[in-house]
């Protein structure tokens, strides 16, 4: 009998919280697996990595990762993360968010975090639906997909999230599907080692609601679909990366650039204007015991 070995992902998880709430075939766990691989490879001090999420199925990621983690309110992971990063700049702050959480209720925070170049890695698991509440339409649900609140099919135009991120100022923008586990892990690793507002969209199956309601089969069929329909186009113009219902999925790294983060820009401005009078923010420390 072979000796039982620990799964390499386990040390990144709060095993006392397993099993997760995610359905069989759900893509969120796959992205977490890739994320732990990225953490292993990027050689970060894990005590300094904080994960922040909002509400929804993807919002539960923070609670399962054995890192400092914050499960915030619906849509507000990014402004929470902005405050956390500004108050404690040595942290690596990662926001994990779903399509509804990030682009509907949190849409305003998303464009502004990108515009001001908050130093945050933002991972969006896009499964085209609000899973936690039972499969409602989101800003990414393409026409004519069925959702519980579009029983006759979705008809609103959708957000092209990589384009929204890129045009708002994100310095790193990539998209993968949960079929592309190696590429996704690599992309997460690369993004972790960069600075600025970094955005990775991961197209992921929601077998229980999105796939079933649209009679698209099981999660395995969806992996085949991702494989067949994905086209890798690094450096693609994000305007051409829009998704439609069951059509081509452009994946790859679309943007990889560098500009000053909010903190760098602020420090530069203050130093320029105030000179020696400027007292840069010091990392918080515990007050001495009385």
């Amino acid at each position, binding site marked *: 009998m072979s000796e039982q070995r620990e799964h390499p992902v386990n040390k990144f998880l709060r095993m*006392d919280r397993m099993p997760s709430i995610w359905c069989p075939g759900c893509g969120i766990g796959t992205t977490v697996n890739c994320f732990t691989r990225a953490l292993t490879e990027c050689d970060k001090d894990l*005590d300094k990595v904080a994960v922040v999420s909002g509400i929804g199925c993807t919002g539960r990621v923070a609670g399962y990762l054995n890192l400092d983690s914050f499960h915030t309110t619906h849509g507000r992971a990014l402004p929470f993360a*902005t405050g956390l990063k500004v108050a404690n700049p040595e942290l690596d702050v990662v926001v994990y968010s779903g399509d509804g959480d990030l682009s509907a209720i949190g849409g305003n925070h998303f464009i502004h975090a990108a515009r001001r170049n908050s130093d945050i890695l933002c991972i969006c698991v896009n499964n085209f639906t609000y899973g936690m509440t039972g499969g409602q339409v989101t800003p990414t649900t393409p026409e004519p997909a069925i959702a519980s609140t579009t029983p006759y099919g979705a008809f609103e135009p959708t957000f092209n999230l990589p384009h929204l991120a890129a045009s708002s100022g994100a310095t790193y923008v990539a998209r993968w599907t949960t079929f592309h586990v190696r590429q996704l892990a690599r992309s997460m690793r690369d993004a972790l080692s960069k600075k600025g507002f970094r955005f990775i969209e991961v197209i992921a199956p929601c077998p229980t609601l999105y796939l079933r309601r649209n009679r698209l089969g099981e999660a395995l069929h969806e992996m085949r679909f991702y494989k067949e329909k994905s086209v890798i186009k690094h450096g693609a113009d994000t305007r051409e990366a829009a998704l439609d219902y069951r059509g081509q999925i452009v994946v790859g790294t679309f943007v990889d650039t560098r500009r000053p983060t909010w903190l760098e820009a602020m420090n530069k401005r203050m130093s320029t204007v105030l000179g020696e009078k400027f007292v840069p923010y010091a990392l918080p420390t515990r007050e001495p015991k009385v």
Partner: protein
Amino acid sequence: MKADPKGVLTGSHYLDGDHACSEGALAAGCRFAAGYPITPSTEVVERIAARFPLVGGTFIQLEDELAASIAVIGGVWGGAKALTVTSGPGFSLMMEHIGFAAMTETPVVYIDVQRGGPSTGLPTLAAQADMMQARWGSHGDYRLIALCPNSPQECFDLTLEAFNLAEQYRVPVVVMLDEVVGHMTEKVVIPPAEQLEVTPRRWTDKPPGEFLPFAPREDLVPDLCMFGEGYRFHVTGLTHDERGYPAMNAPTQERLVRRLVDKIEKNADKILRWEEKDTEGAEVVIVSYGITSRVAQRAVEMAREKGVKVGSFRLITAWPFPHKRIAELSRSVKSLVVPELNLGQMSLEVERTVAGRCRTIPVLHAGGAVHRPEAILEAIMEVAR
């Protein structure tokens, strides 16, 4: 411990209430603030934006009040003392995160400079109509602390105090100004740093692995740690156990929410502050707060000139409410007169507390101006007759 002299603008100043709040925050050691402009509160963050870079603080103006009200919670868990400031419409937007701060026991300070409402109401004119919103505005059961300064000096003192109470009880504290107090300019004396007491954060002594971030000490308040120290802990707005893990069931809900309420109610005697004058032997006592307390003072003088035995009771802590003391007063006076710039808020709490033992006479004003002292005098004389 004593205040960090870097942030303390020791001296005698001529400041408005909003600016005095900024200085109170600086003296308390606040080094992170987030905000979104709204009249009549913006001066608080304007001064902070100018002063912070000189003392090692960071201010960020965000895209809305929702963002500001949660960015400060992020800042606190990052290890900073943090503040945001707003007025009516922004305060409404902040309600979800005031509840979130209560649920996650985040020591954070909110300032609300009250203006006339509802909705856009009177952006530049005073009201005291957010008092019940401060208490009940977020969904679910929780308690917080709300303080009501009535002068620029007290804006300084109570903003500093708000930070101290937030740290002591791991609770959001709201400083409830009104537009007049926010914009009136008076002498503000800021003592030397060594005369200012600052409550340090309740940092845990326990190492990672042993520390439970939601396990209370005897005073029902848990200690805390900050992100990045190796604790690898979890914070959630879901009902959670002492580890901070979600535990969505009735027993955990009962234990947690009961404690969130009890930690304020059972410590109320230590939290409560009020100012009382001539209540001994009084037949009428005016219960007031904020700018209205200063108008009431004139009415009290006028009534005393007419020989009426009238005392005054000024709420400094609006929440928790001084139930015990108001109940005692209700046993010795004929009436409690409650003037306020709203159509019945704290007067309801007074009425509920006295439970019919004496008359409660609200003197209500919808806001946009302050009371005429005569209106309050009339209510006093009605009892005296």
